[in-house]
């Protein structure tokens, strides 16, 4: 005992029954006070002094700012026919933060089984996600409804897995316009880094190529934001507030006409397939404005496969196809232009005064520079020729001489005037420039000046010359319209979600050619002469006036017989009101005008046909375009067989 005061009571039998210790009761009461006091003090600290901090934390716990995707703008052809629609589809996503590591193998295996995917692909998708662990990662798109429902109902077995309804792009004509329209797909890590500040999300879809990518900003619209409540398992329990409504994207009205595109594709496919070829380009353009009415590149691919989520094997197959279907060969590839390039040499010679319209030059079986012989294509020549004759027959020795008079640098200057060696500025991604050889260019790239023979070659579109089909048709359009080089365009209007035009595209002049109208008139007549002298077979027999130039561009290495493979070109323009008239039986007055609203180009890669397949393709297209009932096509010309003998 420690001297505690003790109060005792005596029981009836005199035995002390209990000892009461007031001090210890007091101490116990004090302990109660201290205990409850400490709890209260701490509660006061948490609930009163730090209330706002914890209220914020509780709010952050339970709420989530959810993006509200905006409907992506649509794409129409020039006649307002829809080329794409947004289709609601189910996609499967995983939020890595909500998927416990130890359950991940099971969940991935289950999903792989349900979706028919390789578990390794799912793991790769999760691990290569560039966002935070709280950003959902897309595992599969366009999942069947039954599968989506099953996954949605298996929540407990599939933690972190969610089903989203997403709008997928459904391209109405698929392969018809794939290389122009492009497609949308999941945003890449690099894109996300660049675009996160602009409101792009880790699982966002973005225009990957074609117009979908060039006009991404207009098409995307503005995403809205929604405040939602979620529980500890991450499931959304209710929508608290829509903070901002999404603004639908704007739509595009293209210069492309679906009808013209179908005709162009039909013509090109016919020519290419009949000749047993694979690769070709066809472009239809309005020379007065630069508007592209049709642009076909074969082989093509189905952009719907990409918007659905293409399998790796299918993608690899497209990448490994030697004819590169993913490229738009009209703008993304460059080819030797062959004789179509004689336009440059002709305009240059006339404009620089090296020749006049009436100047006669002697064409020969070949020209020599030192030991080297430069042959006429028919190895005979065409006698004395003026520009109409030389261009009409596509005489090589004629243009060797003009090129020699101009010199490589003036030739290059006129090529640049006509838009070669630089992007045309068409609103498609990945346009290539081509090469216009000059002394400076060769010094820079090969460390030597141009040799005289190379000037000859450059004058007929061989040697170092490489161009894109879009450059070529744009140059002939400038010829047809009287000397204005326009920027080729694919979009007429951008239309807001309310249907009002927010941006109307006007023709954009790149430059006025520094040549007199007389020079261009002469060259248009020369182009008409190509048709008139039946260099293009029976094209002259069409009831309409057509002017143009064919090209046979050699490339690669000679075969066993010493023959080089070649591409076929034909680029033509048709004057407005092209019907032949009694007052203008040759059509020369028609091409003197500068009112052409139709330029057409066909290109066939590695053709090696008996005749120029590109001419036949353009002819077929013109028949369809003008509703010409009689069929002028000469199928025999499309047989394989090297008509162009090299030496």
């Amino acid at each position, binding site marked *: *005992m*420690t001297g*505690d005061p*003790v*109060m*005792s*009571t*005596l*029981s*009836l*039998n005199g035995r*002390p*029954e*209990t*000892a*009461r*210790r007031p001090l*210890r*009761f007091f*101490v*116990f*009461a004090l*302990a*109660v*006070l201290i*205990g*409850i006091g*400490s*709890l*209260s003090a*701490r*509660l*006061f600290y*948490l*609930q*009163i002094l*730090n*209330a706002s*901090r*914890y*209220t914020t*934390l*509780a*709010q952050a*716990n*339970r709420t989530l700012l959810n993006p509200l995707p905006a409907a992506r703008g649509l794409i129409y052809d020039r006649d307002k026919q829809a080329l794409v629609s947004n289709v609601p589809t189910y996609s499967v996503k995983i939020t890595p933060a909500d998927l416990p590591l130890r359950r991940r193998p099971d969940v991935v295996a289950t999903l792989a089984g349900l979706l028919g995917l390789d578990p390794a692909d799912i793991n790769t998708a999760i691990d290569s996600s560039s966002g935070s662990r709280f950003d959902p990662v897309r595992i599969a798109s366009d999942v069947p409804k039954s599968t989506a429902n099953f996954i949605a109902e298996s929540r407990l077995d599939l933690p972190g897995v969610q089903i989203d309804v997403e709008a997928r792009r459904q391209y109405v004509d698929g392969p018809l316009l794939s290389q122009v329209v492009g497609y949308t797909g999941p945003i890449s890590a690099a894109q996300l880094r660049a675009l996160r500040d602009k409101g792009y999300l880790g699982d966002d879809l973005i225009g990957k190529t074609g117009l979908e990518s060039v006009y991404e900003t207009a098409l995307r619209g503005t995403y809205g934001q929604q405040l939602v*409540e*979620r*529980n*500890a*398992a991450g499931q959304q*329990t209710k929508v608290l507030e829509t903070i901002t409504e999404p603004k639908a994207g704007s739509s595009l009205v293209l210069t492309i006409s679906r009808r013209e595109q179908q005709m162009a594709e039909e013509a090109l496919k016919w020519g290419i397939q009949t000749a047993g070829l694979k690769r070709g380009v066809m472009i239809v353009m309005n020379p007065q404005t630069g508007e592209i009415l049709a642009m076909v590149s074969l082989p093509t691919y189905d952009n719907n496969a990409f918007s659905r989520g293409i399998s790796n094997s299918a993608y690899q197959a497209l990448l490994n196809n030697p004819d590169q279907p993913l490229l738009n060969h009209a703008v993304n590839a460059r080819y030797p232009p062959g004789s179509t390039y004689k336009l440059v040499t002709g305009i240059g010679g006339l404009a620089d005064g090296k020749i006049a319209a009436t100047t006669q030059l002697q064409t020969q079986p070949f020209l020599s520079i030192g030991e080297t012989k430069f042959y006429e294509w028919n190895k005979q020549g065409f006698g004395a020729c003026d520009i109409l004759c030389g261009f009409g027959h596509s005489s090589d020795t004629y243009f060797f001489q003009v090129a020699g008079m101009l010199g490589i640098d003036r030739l290059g200057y006129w090529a640049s005037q006509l838009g070669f060696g630089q992007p045309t500025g068409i609103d498609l991604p990945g346009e290539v420039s081509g090469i216009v050889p000059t002394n400076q260019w060769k010094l820079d790239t090969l460390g030597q000046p141009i040799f005289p023979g190379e000037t000859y070659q450059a004058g007929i579109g061989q040697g170092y010359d490489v161009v894109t089909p879009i450059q070529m048709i744009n140059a002939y359009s400038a010829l047809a319209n009287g000397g204005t080089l326009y920027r080729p365009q694919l979009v007429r209007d951008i239309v807001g979600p309310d249907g009002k035009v927010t941006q109307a595209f006007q023709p954009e002049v790149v430059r006025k050619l520094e040549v007199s109208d007389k020079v261009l008139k002469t060259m248009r007549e020369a182009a008409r002469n190509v048709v008139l002298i039946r260099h293009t077979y029976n094209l002259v027999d069409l009831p309409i006036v057509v002017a143009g130039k064919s090209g046979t561009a050699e490339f690669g290495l000679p075969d066993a017989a010493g023959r080089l493979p070649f591409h076929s070109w034909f680029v033509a323009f048709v004057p407005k009101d092209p019907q032949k008239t009694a007052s203008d039986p040759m059509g020369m007055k028609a091409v003197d005008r500068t009112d052409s609203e139709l330029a057409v180009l066909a290109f066939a890669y590695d053709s090696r046909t008996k005749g120029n397949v590109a001419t036949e393709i353009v002819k077929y297209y013109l028949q369809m375009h003008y509703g010409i009932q009689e069929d002028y096509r000469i199928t025999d010309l499309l047989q394989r067989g090297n008509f162009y003998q090299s030496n």
Partner: protein
Amino acid sequence: MGFGRTETARVRDWGNRPIGASWPAFDLQLVTYAVLLATIGLAMAYSNSVGPGASALNAGSTFARGLLWTGLAVVVFGIVAVFDYQWLRTFAWPLYLGQIGLLVLTLAVGTGVGGVARWILIGGMAFQFSEIAKILMIVVLASFLGSRGDRAGSLRTIVGAAVLVGPPLVLVMLQPDLGTSLVFGGILVGMLFMSGASLRWLGAIASAIVVAFPFLWANVLRDYQKERLTTFLNPNPDIQGSGYQLYQSQIAVGSGGWFGKGLTNGTQNQLDFLPVQTTDFVGAILAEELGFLGCIVVFLLFAALIWRILVAGWRSRDPFGMAFAAGLASMILFQLVVNFGMVIGIMPITGIPLPFVSHGGASLISLAAGLGIIQSINVRQRRAEW
């Protein structure tokens, strides 16, 4: 040990025991405070049970089971209050053996989460016998301490009490249930103190335990126990891992403010951010939904309840009643401080329920039995004759 020595004398005492009870002495306040606390507990269970498409009265809901247990607790209280508590002294030994039996049974067939044996399923309901064991322990200790008389201050009192507490405490630790074994310790200290044990010896033993602590830490405690014990000390806990409960609990408490978010409006509770909401972390719901003032009301109810229990002990005509009241008061105080302290992050995380408020049948029944004994002491007291 004095425990056995007085047995014959006590049996001889039977003739002197009162045959009736003095029901005017029934402490209505004591019952009122307890009922209010249990009602708050039911309110918390209700709040946790309602939800979109879920009625709180659905069979098997926390609230429905809480109602059932509360009804049962009232019955138990009534029976025990009528019963003369003096008989408990007589049957102290069988009760002690019964207590140890229950704990052994729990170890043998008990179930629990994560490799622990803590509950026994009775008719599909989990029952935690260690809760019953705590009340039985108080009875047994009160019986022992009440028999010490003038020798209460000797070292033997402390040693004897410790020896009695030893086996049940070890059995509970083996489950393992660190929290409940700590409650045993709290009860022991509280009862020894109030029964007049030597403060010098108590101090010496306390010092010895402090010295031995590093050894206990290294050899007795399991890793998860150490983690739980230290989490609350860590200013930057791993909120996705071991610190998750504590973090979410503090958010719930802190966001409650003065008046709380209102019953059933606590987002931390309703959206399941709080783990073990209705049992160990019921205080978090309380603080979130009823606020600081709600908590203060609960604290005041606890203080009043403990006061009424101590008054019963003071008035008791024998040392058993006094010691029992001290034990029950110690248990309630200890659990209040440790449980609520855990919720608000000043005590380590242990599985100790908040008396009356936490959902749990065994805890409520045991407390009802304890209060029943207190009422039995009240109604069988003699007016103090000093």
